[in-house]
Every structure is written in structure tokens, then in C-alpha cells.
């Protein structure tokens, strides 16, 4: 048996290259990690234990001080950032207008719930379809220009959506007050979203989390599949050298439009879930800061990977919601409310610490961009492979 790849076309059958690949290399940790089944299984596991670890586990949750709803919100923004990264990280297109799809889907989902059906699944489908359609139209126009002009056009469209929702369409959107008429029915007609899951209450909490978590796993599976389809390769080729991609015979413009629509669709899934999560649509979902936040999340976590942006979303929301609430920064294990108390009197490092959360986030962001261009996820991956090398593995 030859260990060199076959070089003549007729010597391999249809499945030839797959067989040959597995023969050439033994399954290593890298290969297992690449496999689709592993990605989906690991994501499911992580999503299942996340709220427990974050909000209820002994010691860990005490240190993190997380809570159930924040775990849900992290997954929602994680979907948004992951889809956004297909455009930013893989295709190399910076959009500053994804609030239009997040907000558009959130409003569409809200209006749909009030007017048509309160079934959570249908609400998600309605919001997502609306976002995909908007992304098609806005992408069709914005992608006429490249680089900075593209970014500015998307920003302009995003702000246009904001002002439309603020006043001309206030009779639908509720204007400044946001959309307050969201109706939420039972999941599959059976499960009340705010009720705890019988028997698994300690692990995942409510049905709402099960819905959001399930959709998140589906989204990861879909994004992972897209990256391993021909599109994944074409997107990266466009990012690397779009002129060359055009001159090997690829319709670069249509692939860019597809990247835009796909990322807008993920934003739509997330926006619809956000409506279900908060049972309310704030006007700020259309504001440009929403577009900015998702850029920061993606870059913070790492644009070169599927999971980086989800981690980025987690860190961003953690700082925004938990760190901002910290009154006094104390040394660990000092003060009365710790698991292990060394000193009864807390050693205070800084008063009013939480008020500086924007600054903290800014410093973390600058540090990541300057020191770790592959983001925090990239840093963790490098660290992991270094540890494995030390351990003698590959």
C-alpha cells in the first residue's frame, strides 16, 4: 500500500480521497477536534452545563457571581457574534450595520407574536426570515462598494432603520418606548417558557434556556458546516485576495452577498431570541452601538475561529453586567462572605470599581488587539497546544 497520495485521476474511486486521508494519518486529537460530531457534542455539553456552572455550581458560581438570565443572554449574543464573524473574520468584510438585522428581527418577532402567532418557534422563524430578506436587500446595495465605503453604507442603513423605528414607524414599533406588546405562548404548545424544567432544574433552569440553548447548538452546527463547505474556502479566499478569487472564475460579488445574507440570518435568529428573552423590544436594538458591540465581541474573542466570538460575547456581557456591579475591589479570600476566609476585614483595593467597566473593557480590548491579534480564543488555543507539546503529545 502506497503512503503517497494518488496522483492519477483514474486510480481513485469516488470516495478515494477520503479513504486515503484516513489512511495517511492516524486519528490524532487535532483530527477528532475537527470532526463535526465532536463539535456538536461538545457544544451541546457546554451549553447544558453552562448555566449550572455560571449560576449554581458551588465555588465556581460564587467566584463568577453569574445568574441564569445572563447565561441565556450570553448565548443569544454569542449566536449574533458568531454569525457576524462569518462576514468579518472569514470573508473580511466589516459591517457597521448589523443592528439593522438584529433589531429588525427583534421587532418583526415582536409584531408577529402580537398579530399572528405566539408560538416561540414561529416567532423565531418570522424574525429570522425578515432579517434574511433585509440582509439581501441591504447587502445588494452596500456591496456595490468595497472597504471603508461598504462599512459606511451599512452604518447609514443601520441608522436609517433606527430613525424609521423612532418616528415614522412609531405606530408599529412604539417609537421611543420600544415594542411592549410581545405575546409569548408555550413551546410546542406544551412548555411554559418561564417554568423550570422538571428534574433538570438544577442544570439548565427554565424552558426558555432550553429553547435558546437548543437554537444555539443548531446555529453552531450550521456555522460549522458552512465553514467546512465550499463556501468556507471561498470566503477565506475572498478575504485573502478577492481579485485572484475573481480571476480563478468565482463570482466574488455573489459569494460576498451570500456571506452578508448568512451573517444577517444569524443576527436575525439572535434578535428573535432576544425578543423572546426579554418579552420586549427596546428601541436601542437598532442603535449603532449594537453594531459596534458585536464588532468588539468578535474581535475580543478572536475573528479567526468559530467559537472565539462566542467567548468574546461572554466576556463583554460579563464585564457589562457583573463587573459593573462590583462596588469594592477586594483581595480574594478577605472579607466575611468568601468560601475560604483568611482575613475577616476585607482588604479594599479600590472603591467604586464597577463604575469603570467601560474603561476596563477598553483596556482589555486594546491589550487583546495589540498583543493577541487572534483574540482570547486564539490565545487559549496556543496555550493548549503548548501544554500538549510539553506533555509529549502532538
Amino acid at each position: 500500500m502506497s503512503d503517497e497520495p494518488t496522483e492519477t485521476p483514474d486510480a481513485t474511486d469516488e470516495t478515494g480521497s477520503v479513504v486515503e486521508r484516513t489512511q495517511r494519518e492516524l486519528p490524532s486529537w487535532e483530527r477528532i477536534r475537527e470532526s463535526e460530531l465532536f463539535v456538536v457534542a461538545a457544544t451541546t455539553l457546554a451549553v447544558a452545563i453552562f448555566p449550572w456552572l455560571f449560576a449554581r455550581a458551588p465555588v465556581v458560581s460564587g467566584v463568577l457571581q453569574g445568574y441564569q438570565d445572563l447565561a441565556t443572554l450570553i448565548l443569544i449574543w454569542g449566536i449574533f457574534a458568531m454569525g457576524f464573524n462569518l462576514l468579518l473574520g472569514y470573508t473580511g468584510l466589516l459591517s457597521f450595520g448589523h443592528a439593522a438585522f438584529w433589531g429588525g428581527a427583534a421587532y418583526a418577532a415582536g409584531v408577529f407574536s402580537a398579530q399572528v402567532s405566539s408560538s416561540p418557534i414561529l416567532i423565531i422563524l418570522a424574525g429570522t426570515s425578515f432579517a434574511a430578506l433585509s440582509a439581501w436587500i441591504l447587502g445588494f446595495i452596500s456591496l456595490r462598494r468595497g472597504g471603508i465605503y461598504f462599512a459606511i453604507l451599512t452604518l447609514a442603513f443601520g441608522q436609517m432603520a433606527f430613525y424609521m423605528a423612532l418616528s415614522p414607524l412609531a405606530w408599529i414599533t412604539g417609537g421611543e418606548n420600544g415594542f411592549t406588546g410581545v405575546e409569548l405562548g408555550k413551546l410546542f404548545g406544551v412548555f411554559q417558557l418561564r417554568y423550570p424544567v422538571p428534574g433538570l432544574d438544577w442544570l439548565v433552569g427554565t424552558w426558555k434556556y432550553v429553547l435558546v440553548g437548543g437554537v444555539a447548538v443548531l446555529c453552531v452546527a450550521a456555522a460549522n458546516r458552512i465553514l467546512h463547505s465550499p463556501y468556507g474556502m471561498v470566503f477565506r479566499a475572498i478575504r485573502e485576495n478577492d481579485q485572484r478569487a475573481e480571476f480563478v472564475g468565482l463570482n466574488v460579488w455573489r459569494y460576498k452577498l451570500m456571506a452578508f445574507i448568512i451573517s444577517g440570518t444569524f443576527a436575525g435568529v439572535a434578535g428573535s431570541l432576544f425578543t423572546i428573552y426579554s418579552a420586549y423590544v427596546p428601541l436601542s436594538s437598532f442603535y449603532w452601538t449594537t453594531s459596534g458591540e458585536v464588532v468588539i465581541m468578535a474581535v475580543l474573542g478572536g475573528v479567526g475561529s468559530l467559537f472565539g466570538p462566542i467567548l468574546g460575547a461572554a466576556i463583554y456581557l460579563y464585564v457589562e453586567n457583573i463587573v459593573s456591579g462590583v462596588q469594592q475591589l477586594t483581595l480574594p479570600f478577605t472579607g466575611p462572605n468568601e468560601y475560604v476566609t483568611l482575613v475577616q476585614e476585607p482588604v479594599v483595593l479600590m472603591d467604586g470599581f464597577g463604575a469603570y467597566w467601560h474603561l476596563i473593557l477598553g483596556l482589555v480590548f486594546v491589550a487583546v488587539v495589540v498583543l493577541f491579534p487572534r483574540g482570547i480564543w486564539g490565545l487559549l488555543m496556543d496555550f493548549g497546544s503548548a501544554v500538549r507539546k510539553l506533555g509529549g503529545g502532538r
Partner: protein
Amino acid sequence: MALLETHNLTKSFGGLVAVDDVNLEIEEGESISVIGPNGAGKSTLINLVTRMLDATEGDIEFDGDSILKHEPHEVVQKGVSRSFQTASIFPELTVEENAQIAALAAEHGSFRFNFLRHRNNYGEVDRLARRTLDAVGLLGQRDVTAEDLPYGDKRRLELGIALASEPSLLLMDEPTAGMSPEETADTVELIEEVKEQLDLTILLVEHDMEVVFNVSDRIVVLNRGAVIAEGPPEEVQGNPEVQEAYLGGMDA
């Protein structure tokens, strides 16, 4: 019938006429070279044929059809592929992925809705990519990141990308620019090899006279955008007008 024909092809940038009323015919299986001093309009000619630039006047026919209104990727899909003056590759992808992208475009056409289909289902793309890498002698380096290749190999890879598009006409813009004499000799050999193997028609734009005389069946001499001479290498070399415009210095 000629594979590629241009009729009164003209391109002007403002007042400057870069390509002036050029009528070109390339027969199938022919190797022709376009030479001329700097600024003669050689690269512009290639850019016009591949639809990177819009012609001011005239027509371009490939395989009997006008391609004047086609998008660049449509021209490639019809069978016209090109290499660039600088090594235009996908730097952060591996050598194999570079070839796979071109192979994908050749096998799947310019666009498909297959974003949920796993890449393992496309064995024919992998095979075409590997065959091409083998042809340009880069199969052994298929897992190397393209930007880590030495310059000569990057140019080889670029040629590989152009070949994986499965062209019938290959346009090469100064394939030996910036190469050492050894690399140049290798490249000439490589061009002759792939021409034999893949049954290509080649249009070469080149400065290096040695390359031109080695590779071409016919030479077209451009000066200030216009064709001043055309014919087999020996004949063009002897043409006094050409010697004055371009070759004079070379013979001395």
C-alpha cells in the same frame, strides 16, 4: 478559426492611448509572445482580454463569441486564465487550498448554493488540485502555508492556480519577473512541460528575450500601444524597425 481574436482593440486613459488599434489572432495550440519596451501596453492588452479593464473601442472574441461584455469570472469560466506580474496567491491558506479554490471554480462554475454540503463530498475537486500541484512540482509542499514559500515557488503556485482553472488559453504576465537565472530556466522548462501536458494555447508577455525566443512560435512587437511587427522569432529579431524600437540594445 482562431481561438482568440481582437478587432481594432483600443484602450485610452484620458489622452494616453495605451493600446492602439490592435488586431491579434491566436490559433489553438499556438504559443505567442507579446514584447515591447516599458509602457508599450503589453500588460494593458492582457488586462483588456481578461476583462479587468474595459476597452475603449474594438471587440474581443474568444472561441467565436464576443467577451466584451463579460465579467472577469465569466471569461475565466469560458477558458481564459491568467497569471499576474506579482505572485498573486492566497497567502494565509495552504498550498493545497490555493489549488483547491481554483479547482472548485473549474468544477463547480462561478457560483453554487452548496453552503450546507460538506467538503468531503467533493473528491473531484481534491483530485484536480493535486494533479495540478503535481504538474507544477509543489505536491510535496501541499501543507505549507503559501506565504512561507520561497519567491520562485510562489510564482509556481500562481501558475498552478491559473492551471487548476482548466483553461484552454493561458495568459502570462511576465512569469519570470524578479527571478534568478536558475529560477527563470526552471520556469521556462515548466511552461513547456505544462503546455505539452495540458494542450494549452499560451500568450506570454515578457521582458526576458531568452524566455521569449525559447517558448514562442510567434512574436508580436508592441510599441506605444501599436503592433509594429509580427512573425516567427528569427524574422522579428531581424526586423530593423524592431531593432530600433527595442532589440537594438540587446544585440550589442
